[in-house]
Every structure is written in structure tokens, then in C-alpha cells.
């Protein structure tokens, strides 16, 4: 199988030469009729995610080929992971007639783009994490596939407490902003309900890279379980340093919001073995649609789809299906077609809730495997449990404008 790192290296080499000055790169030749916008961080620290996302969008666009008797294409929009850049480039794309957008990996850029696209009567679907996207800042043009913080905690902390009845003392490490607090508050509610002692929490800034001080605090509190509530490279750093402090041998570790395969490749099985992870997607999910996708991606790209790839593939498909159903690429018509849509998705049966545009899907609790137990190079984890947990639109504070 192709090495994922090699694949990204070649894409990193070619991307720069292919970008147009405006940062908009038509993936197909001119003359296409329907264009999907893919605003993703193609450069900067999150470029790897963006590149896999772009590959996912490209694959479904190529696969479908035509809808409504018009040729289908997509435009890769490099947001650079910056909200202001993302908004400016999305505006440019909308001026060129693009109404349908799938992308936005980072919460800040997704929130900004969602508002902009909605203002221009377009439709934007994202996989970003911020609860506000389908919560307090929900709007008529924005949809979100990923499970919010409430469901991520309900489907990881709750089943783990049930599996580990002796783990009565939990310590949390939390990034200090809305996303972290969303996860922390959901965890605290479960601790209270289950009689768990929350022996401490360490807040840290979004730029922190050194977690040994916080881990020293955690060890001094002698917890039975360590709940890591940051994400991306910060969660990898926290876990790496926790393992070096021997915490894996002394307590259960749960990383509630993992990125899946892309993160596991950087961690490796030695760090992951015995650690629990929460995930939006895993290529080992046993659903017909996912099995089909995994087979297709293996055949085409000689790799397993990761979260960025699979979610971009699916969210772009939802836009295409909705446009076909609506018989138009007009934003409000496509949005209406998406509302209440039920479909066989990556995580099984999924549904787009009409009231807040949140996709109702499963969230997964995974457990890292020993290197010797891995069946192939990507077989980092087993699925322990999964399920759907969502606040009502009212509880999530969505008042659809």
C-alpha cells in the first residue's frame, strides 16, 4: 500500500505549482457547469488535513461526474486556516457563481464561512468542532456533519465509566476556550450523575506545547483516569508526555476528541496501546457505505480513508444529492432538500436534523492496540462502543434565523 506520508509529500510538491494567484484552483478544465467549493486549509499547520479533505471531495465529484445534465466540478480554496482569508476567498468563489461549499476543518474558519455563505444564499457543510455551528450561531445555510462536544463526551466518558466501575477519581486537562469548556461541562455533568470524584482540572492556553507541569499536577491528584480534552497536536503532545511520565501504567487514559487515523499515524502503536480515544470516524466501521468507500479508496489511492478524506467525501456527496433532489443549485432550494434528509452514511443510518442542520450520527469509543495485535499498518485501534447522543436544538441554543 502507498505510504500516506509519500502521498502527502507528492501533493505538497505539486500543490504550490498548481495554485492560481487568487488561491482558487479549478480541479477540472473550464467549461464545467456545477462547481462545488472546497474551502480547506491547504497550507499552514493544518495543510495535511486540507489535502486529504480535497482528495475526498475530488473523488466523489469525479465519481458522480454529472447531475442535472450538467458536468460536475470543484474548486479547491486554500483558507490557510485563517477565518479572514477563508471569508475573502469564499466571497470570491461566490462572485464566480459557486453556491455549494463543503469544507472548513477549523472551528474559527467554519463559523466565519458559514455566516458568509448563508448571507449570500449559499449552502455550507462542515466537519468542524465548535458547538456554535449548529448551536447558538446556527443559520439557514450552514450544516454540520460532526458530532458536537456533548455527544463526544456522552459516547466516550459514559461507556468508559460503565466499563471501569473502579475508576472513581478522574482528572481533566482542558484547553481554555469554548470548545474545551463544552467538553468539560459535559464531562462534569456525567461525573455528577455517576458519583465520580472530579479530582482536578488543568486549563491551558491554545498555544501550549509543554504539558509536563499539568501532568505533574494530575499525578499528584492520584486519579484513576485521565481525561484529555484538547485536540490535534496538543492532544498528541499531552498523550506523548503522559505516557513518558508512566501514567499509562497507573491510570486509564481517555483522549475524548481524536482525529482518527491521521493522528494515530503520528502517535504510533507504542503510545496508543491501551489508551482510549473518541472518534468521529474510523475506517473499520462496519457499515455498508463505509465498507464500500474503504474498498474504493484502497483501489484508487492504495490507502485507507482517514477522517478528513471520508468526511469530505460524504459531505460533498450530501450537497450533490441534495442539489439533484432539489433540481437546482440554488442555495435555499438545496438547503431545503437537505433538511430532514435520511441516508445510509459512513457511520450507518444518518439523518440531517431540520431544526438545527446537525447530522445525527454515531460517535465512537476506540481502544489502542498493541503493535503485535495489528492486522495491518493502519489497524491501530478496536471499536469498543458507539452510539448517538445529541442535545435538542433548543438545548443547543439554536434559533434558526
Amino acid at each position: 500500500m502507498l505510504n500516506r506520508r509519500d502521498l502527502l509529500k507528492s501533493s505538497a510538491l505539486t500543490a504550490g505549482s498548481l495554485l492560481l494567484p487568487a488561491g482558487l484552483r479549478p480541479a477540472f478544465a473550464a467549461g464545467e457547469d456545477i462547481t462545488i467549493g472546497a474551502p480547506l486549509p491547504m497550507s499552514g499547520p493544518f495543510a495535511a488535513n486540507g489535502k486529504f479533505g480535497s482528495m475526498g471531495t475530488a473523488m466523489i465529484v469525479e465519481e458522480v461526474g454529472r447531475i442535472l445534465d450538467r458536468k460536475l466540478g470543484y474548486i479547491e480554496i486554500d483558507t490557510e486556516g485563517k477565518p479572514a482569508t477563508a471569508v475573502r476567498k469564499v466571497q470570491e468563489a461566490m462572485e464566480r457563481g459557486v453556491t455549494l461549499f463543503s469544507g472548513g476543518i477549523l472551528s474559527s474558519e467554519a463559523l466565519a464561512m458559514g455566516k458568509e455563505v448563508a448571507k449570500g444564499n449559499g449552502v455550507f457543510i462542515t466537519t468542524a468542532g465548535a458547538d456554535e455551528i449548529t448551536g447558538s450561531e446556527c443559520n439557514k445555510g450552514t450544516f454540520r456533519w460532526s458530532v458536537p462536544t456533548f455527544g463526544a463526551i456522552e459516547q466516550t466518558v459514559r461507556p468508559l465509566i460503565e466499563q471501569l466501575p473502579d475508576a472513581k477519581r478522574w482528572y481533566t486537562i482542558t484547553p481554555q476556550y469554548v470548545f474545551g469548556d463544552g467538553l468539560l461541562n459535559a464531562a462534569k455533568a456525567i461525573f455528577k450523575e455517576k458519583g465520580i470524584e472530579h479530582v482536578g482540572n488543568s486549563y491551558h492556553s491554545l498555544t501550549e506545547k509543554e504539558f509536563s507541569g499539568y501532568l505533574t499536577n494530575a499525578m499528584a491528584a492520584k486519579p484513576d483516569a485521565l481525561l484529555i480534552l484538547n485536540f490535534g497536536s496538543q492532544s498528541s503532545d499531552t498523550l506523548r508526555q503522559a505516557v513518558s511520565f508512566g501514567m499509562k501504567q497507573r491510570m486509564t487514559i481517555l483522549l475524548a476528541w481524536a482525529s482518527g487515523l491521521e493522528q494515530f499515524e503520528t502517535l504510533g502503536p507504542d503510545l496508543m496501546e491501551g489508551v482510549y480515544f473518541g472518534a468521529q470516524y474510523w475506517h473499520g466501521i462496519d457499515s455498508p457505505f463505509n465498507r464500500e468507500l474503504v474498498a474504493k479508496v484502497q483501489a484508487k489511492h492504495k490507502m485507507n480513508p482517514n477522517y478528513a478524506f471520508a468526511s469530505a467525501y460524504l459531505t460533498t456527496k450530501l450537497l450533490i444529492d441534495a442539489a439533484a433532489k432539489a433540481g437546482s443549485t440554488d442555495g435555499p432550494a438545496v438547503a431545503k432538500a437537505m433538511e430532514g434528509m435520511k441516508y445510509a452514511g459512513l457511520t450507518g443510518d444518518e439523518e440531517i436534523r431540520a431544526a438545527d442542520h446537525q447530522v445525527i450520527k454515531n460517535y465512537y469509543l476506540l481502544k489502542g492496540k498493541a503493535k503485535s495485535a495489528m492486522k495491518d499498518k493502519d489497524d491501530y485501534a478496536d471499536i469498543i462502543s458507539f452510539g448517538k447522543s445529541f442535545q435538542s436544538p433548543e438545548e443547543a441554543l439554536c434559533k434558526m434565523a
Partner: protein
Amino acid sequence: MIYLFQLVNGIGLGMLYFLLAVGLSIIFGLLHFVNFAHGAFYLLGAYLVYDMTERGVNFWAGLLLAPIIVAGLAALTETVLLRRIYHLPHTFHILVTVGLALVVQELVIILWGPVGGNVSPPDALGGVFILGDFIYPQYRLFVIGLTLVLAIGLWWLLEGTRLGAVVRAGSESTDMVSLLGIDIVRVNTAVFALGAGLAGLAGALAAPIRGVEPFMGIEALGIAFVVVVIGGMGSYTGALIAGLLVGIVQSVMATLWPEGARLMIYLGMGLVILTMPRGLLGRA
């Protein structure tokens, strides 16, 4: 008791910060050259160890080779590019070295990809040291010990050898040193390579603690500048004291006021700039 843990942890962090910053400080001291590419040498050191261990090379061999390779590359860069701009104002130094740092970062992405990686500590140091309630990774203890030995060795090099005397004299007046028949151009290259090699070693030592990712150089550069500004530009002892101070403040604050741990480092730097513009032990 927890503050004692944090103190030890802070010393561990601080020694790594010292190693990172002292090269920057020495280069500025002798060459009066602001090297914004210093983080890039740290990045290269980390990635070289990562690459070698991925290829099955022994970690210890990687730890030895990485700083040597980085020092060699730095010497080449100094000879081909940087020595041509020493006489220009600092803004040109910044322009060229920032550009150099970006080139190195992009080369790292092209060579190793944008996704980071993990470097396991050597098996002999993979465990933890336990003394009662005190638990600390053996590898971090090794880093403290090694950097301590290096700090003493570096002090001896600068204070007790002829090369050190030339470097110290050169930092006072390069013209005078040249008039004494010493080839200051070669000394400059050697000092630049030494400073960059120390950054490479810091990167190689940090790789098992932090992992590797293409943007780690920028973060390291930030910390290195904080340490150098607090300690005083060009001061070896200043870099040591400031490195330890920053490490200990960062670690102890993780208990006292966790969300402000990083803020306090930069706040401390701001205070030093306001009250002691030359840093704790800096010269004019």
C-alpha cells in the same frame, strides 16, 4: 511536595531552553548577528534524529550525528550566504534569516511531509524514575544530566580555552582580534556552526519529548528569544539563568495558575525589557 516536583520539572525544561538559547546568544555576542533561522536548526536536529531512528539507526548514533550534520550545514550556510550580510543593518539579517527559516521549514515538509511523527526514547531510558511519590521520566532526567555536562563543557570552552578567549575578544572588538593575526572569518564560521549545532542538539534531545512536526522551529525560536532577552544578548551565564528561570516559572505556574503559565513567561520578558533593557547579564 508538588512544588518540589514542579521545580525539578522546571529545571529539566530550563536546561533544554538553555541549550536552545545559548547558541543564539553566542552567535549574537560574537557576530552581532540576529539569527532568526536558529529555530530552523532546532527543527533540522529533531527531524534528523527522527529520520535516522525511522531507518533503524540507533538513537544514540542519531543523537551524536544530528548536531554534527546541523553544524556542518550551518557552516556551509554561513560561508555561502550569511557572512556576506554581517556588515548590513539588523533588518537585513532578519530578512535573510527569516527567509532561510521558511525555506528550511518547507524543505522539511517536502522531505518528510506535513504530518509530524513520534520518536521513542531509547529502551534503556524508556521507563520512569520512582522515589516515593516522585515519578519522573528517566529520559527527562538524562536530558537534565546531559545538558548539565554540556553547560559545564561549554563554559570551559568559552572561559578556559584559546578559542574561547578569541571568541570573547572578538565579541569586544573583531578589528583588534584581526590585527593580532587571528583569522576572525574562520572563527565566525566556527562559532556560527557551534551555535547552530547546539540548537540541533536541543532539537534532537527534544524529539522524544515533543515528537516532531514541521512548525516546531517557530515555537522554539520564540522561547529562545525570550531566554536571550531575559538573560541578556551575548551572555552565556545569562542564557543559563534565564533558561532555568523560564523553565521553573512555566512549570510552577502550571500548579499555581495553569491558564497563565505561558502568559507569565512573556510577561516576565516584558518586565525585564522595561526594567533592565540589557537583560539580567547583558552588555551594551
